[in-house]
């Protein structure tokens, strides 16, 4: 095994370790009564954001494409998962199993949409891809918003007008109520389930990155024309990164849905996509562990510093701009090379 491989392996284990240690600390705090009710309520959303950030980093950092529609995939996963759980509430009575299936279904639906959207869209590049993914995210949100779905003894009824035009039997159950969304999803989500989903997500993403497929994805990111010249199928690998990322976002959505009394499509707007992007950028584009930490810190911190809440988004905005200029502006890079050279020298070897 080469030195670099060992380093990577250790680095991956540190990432898993951080998640597990965080879980243990929270458990201890909870059992000793040191965790405020506000923080307790934040545990599952934290897990949701971590998975969302890590999955988006696969597209932005590893595949090198800017997607601004990640909330859309989360939305699909959330509604698919919640829909499934509502329908099977009485048939599958084991909460854990039902939730596991709901996560899978959320991921599967999001993956399906990721694939369907990705096929046409990934031909575009850069700004156009960003704006089209944004458009898809908005379309998904708007379309789910107008659907009414109910189930009765005759099967599933669908309408785009209102719940009364579903024409259900009296025994029917309204599941999706247009803009009001889905209410009464069983609250199957737990912090433990969230942590497991994070670990699975990390396992999939970290190992994918370091495999033959991951290498292909990164080579396309670094130079599309050269990747083509050595026989790498651009569409296939772009699509792979996009679909896997969508699936994970879908699972995150399903987790999110099972933690809420009311699930509404309007929550999954483009601001959520941008928030995920902020996590990715601040954690370091392409740095998976960074995404985990950024998502946790940026979600927990504003809640802990209530007084600062007003300034939160403003600070995010400024940090976003400063980070980009510091990391990418040719003049800033020159300056860094000159004055901070020693601190960045080690990045010459790929073991950061």
């Amino acid at each position, binding site marked *: 095994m080469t030195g670099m491989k060992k380093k990577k392996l250790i680095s991956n284990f540190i990432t898993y370790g951080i998640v597990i240690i965080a879980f243990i600390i929270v458990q201890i705090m909870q059992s000793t009564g040191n965790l405020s009710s506000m923080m307790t309520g934040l545990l599952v959303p934290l897990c949701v954001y971590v998975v969302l950030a890590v999955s988006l980093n696969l597209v932005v950092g590893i595949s090198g494409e800017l997607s601004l529609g990640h909330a859309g995939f989360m939305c699909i996963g959330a509604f698919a998962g919640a829909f499934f759980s509502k329908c099977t509430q009485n048939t599958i009575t084991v909460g854990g199993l039902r939730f596991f299936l709901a996560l899978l279904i959320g991921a599967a639906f999001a993956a399906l949409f990721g694939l369907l959207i990705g096929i046409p869209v990934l031909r575009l590049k850069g700004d156009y891809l960003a*704006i089209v993914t944004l*458009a898809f995210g*908005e379309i998904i949100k708007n379309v789910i918003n107008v659907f009414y779905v109910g189930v009765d003894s005759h099967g599933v009824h669908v309408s785009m007008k209102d719940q009364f035009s579903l024409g259900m039997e009296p025994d029917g159950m309204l599941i999706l109520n247009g803009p009001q969304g889905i209410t009464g999803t069983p609250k199957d989500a737990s912090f433990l389930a969230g942590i497991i989903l994070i670990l699975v997500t990390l396992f999939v993403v970290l190992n994918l990155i370091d495999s033959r497929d991951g290498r292909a994805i990164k080579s396309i990111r670094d130079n599309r*024309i050269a990747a083509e010249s050595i026989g790498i199928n651009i569409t296939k690998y772009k699509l792979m990164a996009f679909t896997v990322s969508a699936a994970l976002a879908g699972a995150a959505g399903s987790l999110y849905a099972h933690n809420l009394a009311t699930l509404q499509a309007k929550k999954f707007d483009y601001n959520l996509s941008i928030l995920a992007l902020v996590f990715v950028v601040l954690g370091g584009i392409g740095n998976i562990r960074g995404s985990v930490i950024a998502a946790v810190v940026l979600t927990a911190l504003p809640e802990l510093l209530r007084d600062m809440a007003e300034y939160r988004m*403003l600070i995010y905005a400024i940090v976003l*701009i400063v980070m*980009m200029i510091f*990391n990418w502006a040719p003049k800033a890079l020159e300056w860094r090379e000159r004055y901070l050279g020693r601190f960045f020298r080690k990045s010459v070897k790929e073991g950061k």
Partner: protein
Amino acid sequence: MSFLSYLINGISLGSVYAIIALGYTMVYGIAKMLNFAHGDVIMVGGYAAFTCIMSAGMPPLAAVLVAVVVCTVIGVLIETIAYRPLLEAASSLAVLITAIGVSYFLQNVVLLIFGSNPKSFQSVVTIPDLKLANGTLNISGVTIVTISSCIVIMLALTTFISRTKAGQAMLAVSEDKGAAQLMGINVNKTIALTFAIGSGLAAIAGVLLCSAYPSLSPYTGSMPGIKAFVAAVFGGIGSIPGAFLGGLLLGVIEIFGKAYVSSQLSDAIVFAVLIVVLLVKPTGLLGKKIQEKV
């Protein structure tokens, strides 16, 4: 008659989109970047005019003028501080993310100053409504002003670009930055000028938008901004007549979508248009194809 009034409303909304889209398309043509914050400059323009009228009691026309000046200055500041350092950056992603940061910055600064409650905007238009066909067709004063300002701006801009030295410099920079520089054109100045014009137009668009839909909040600009970008892409990004055409078509499509399909789905329809255009003809209606050099 309702068809005709929808059409007129569509053209009116489309005129606003067209004015915003002009800013997008000029900046994209010259700096090759998607200025995500452009929509928020519109909102800033709206607030500037609002403050002038409500707090300072200025006459509407003066308020518009102040708004234009404010936005022009902000546009140039954004360009110099945030975008210029990244102009030669290796990653186009960096510029786009910075632009998103600027967009959030503007929204949140306004949020802190004015609060999140929507303000009801008093129309700056004092022209009476026009009643046609025995009063069955009503064209509002705002509509008349909007459509005519769009046409005036469009003509003025075309003349500016084809007749003035600065306009020719803009064309040259959009064609080839390096060559333009060698010809003695100050590229940075030209790009700043482009941002200035685009942002000034955004202020006008902001005032017109708020006069037609009189609710003003820190998020007022973001959706019309994105839609105007759709319009710019639709018409062919980088092309000024394209922005005009794309804006009008998009406005009409949106209003018809609202009227005949579903008011909740009208945004989805607009975005669907974008997707179809990009997939079928990525260069837009009037754009030209660029091939990557190997």
